[in-house]
């Protein structure tokens, strides 16, 4: 099974949406890069209608420089969910997408039945600071992203071509619109109590970018969260370990409260 891609004009932004499978909708918000693709998520499509929209300025979605805040993203995805006629769904957010998913869950909890936050950014935990993505030397980036460098095989040309580098630069630019000023949302902590739906915190224990130490802070603030830690796994947990998808399947397979 593979993804189908369809593009939608969402308030002027040509938005690419990957879908696979049928069933109840399960929406995945990706992180600050799309280089390894999303095939690792396909086991979720065995039981659900898996929907992976590409953020503005990422992959096959068009750029929109005016999308530069978490609320722009949130409203963009509310528009998309309306367009797809999805009133309520499971929402999964990874890394930067975890921050966006948390924001949606804070403000629009009626649209989300269950929430998965996979190594999310956004929370400021002074004892366990997020590594600043923008200051990592390019040659060292892989080591921060994963404990299993082979996940990049076939995705990164060796040596990297100018086209490849330019595509990465474009996605980093789109991430910078949201994150350049700070990798934290200083008010996120204040509002996480509003995320009342069942929530799974999924984290790689060996995450070098967003330390596992942050997980406890999220768990403390979220009223209805459970944790699942993946030993030996880094930041790109879905690419690194099938256990990540299995944990999601177990979590969403539980009876959903009315």
């Amino acid at each position, binding site marked *: 099974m593979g993804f189908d891609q369809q593009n939608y004009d969402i308030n002027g932004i040509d938005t690419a949406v990957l879908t696979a499978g049928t069933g109840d909708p399960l929406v995945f918000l990706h992180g600050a890069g799309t280089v390894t693709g999303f095939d690792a998520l396909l086991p979720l499509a065995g039981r659900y209608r898996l929907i992976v929209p590409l953020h503005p300025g990422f992959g096959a979605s068009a750029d929109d420089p005016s999308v530069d805040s978490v609320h722009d993203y949130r409203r963009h995805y509310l528009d998309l969910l309306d367009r797809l006629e999805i009133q309520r769904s499971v929402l999964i957010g990874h890394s930067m997408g975890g921050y966006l998913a948390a924001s949606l869950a804070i403000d629009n909890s009626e649209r989300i039945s269950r929430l998965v936050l996979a190594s999310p950014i956004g929370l400021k935990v002074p004892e366990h600071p997020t590594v600043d993505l923008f200051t990592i030397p390019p040659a060292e980036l892989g080591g921060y992203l994963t404990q299993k460098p082979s996940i990049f095989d076939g995705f990164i040309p060796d040596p990297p071509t*100018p086209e490849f*580098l*330019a595509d990465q*630069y*474009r996605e980093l*630019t789109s991430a*910078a*619109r949201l994150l*350049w000023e*700070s990798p934290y949302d200083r008010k996120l902590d204040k509002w996480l109590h509003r995320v009342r739906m069942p929530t799974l915190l999924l984290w790689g224990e060996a995450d070098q970018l967003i330390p596992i130490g942050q997980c406890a802070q999220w768990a403390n603030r979220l009223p209805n969260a459970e944790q699942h830690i993946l030993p030996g796994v880094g930041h790109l947990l879905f690419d690194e370990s099938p256990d990540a998808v299995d944990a999601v399947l177990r979590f969403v397979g539980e009876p959903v409260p009315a």
Partner: protein
Amino acid sequence: MNVFDDIQFYLFNHHHYIDIPQDADSYHSTWVDFPNSLYNPERGHELYQRYTRELLLAEELGFDAIALNEHHNTTYSMMPAVSVRAAYLAALTKRVKMLVAGTPVNLSWPSRVAEEYAMLDVLSGGRMEYGFPLGTGMEYWSNATSINPASSRARFREALDIVFRAWEQNGPTRYDGDFYTYRYLNTWPKPMQRPRPKGYIVGSGSSETVNLAVESGCGYSIVFTPIKNQLRAFENFRSLAEERGRTVGPDDLIFTVIAYVGDTDEEAERECRPHVENFFEWFHRVPPKYLSPPGYVSRDEYLRRASSAALADASRATWDDMVSIGRIACGSADTVADMIAHWAEEAGTSRILVTLQHGDMPEWKAVKNMTKFASEVIPRIRARASTAASAPASTAQQTAVEV
């Protein structure tokens, strides 16, 4: 009439922190993260004094202007607050114009820039010209992250608009922009030169910056790049200006030249080459990441840069490369005068900005180079004026003897 009738020479000095450490090879960059534990304030003081001597000599030698610029977190430049340096020099000079080029207006409060530069114009008795740059990519790594490189061009455009309104309009006025709101824009002082001093937008050749210069009624000055890139940008400026019905004068474009003058071509190369080489190899040592923070250029411009080895790593250029692509005019007075005169004619510009102190060049060589340039090159170029007045040349000759 030709471009030589009103030709003017601007002496630019980089203000390098000149000392190159023994373990130079171990540093990947002399910008942004080059450790400031290597900065010695006593040495810094000596160097400020040295560069002051060179710039005051420029006035004595008959240069028309001195030029300064601004960079941050780097051994390349000791002028992170260029208006401070310009104020110091305004007090010590009497005749020369000062091109202050300049504070990236989007990296400061635009009202603050308007105030500082108006102060400089009034303090100097109307001798200030400005050159506002977008700022290199490195400045965005070195300043507060509240200035996002992904919106830097839009912010630059707005900041420039505010500076010009502050200078030209009678305040108080209100300004409601996308980035800045002023309830009372009412700058004291206003510049002495009305409606505003002569000024330039400083760019590296991108169409967007050239376009902004044309739109804002400014001239255009290009950073030190190969001659053909400068000519291409000037051509672009002229055609955009023509589309808008704007007349371009020969003083609207500043041509930048790295030069060294010897008694012979061979002597010039022998004396100059090691310093120009470390100028590029050491002082220009910047990883691509710092040159292009995310959003600073478009994907297409990034692709163009990533596709060109020379652009991707300027510090690897060889001496022969630099000579062949016209990054440097080095040789006898005849050689250098011919090259610069040819380029000025081709560019149609009467404003020549020269740098005569390169890399770790010692003071004696810089002074010798300046003196020979003023006494031997400038007169040769001025002699090409249709009016062929000789007065400035003889002044320069006289002073050179005194030095």
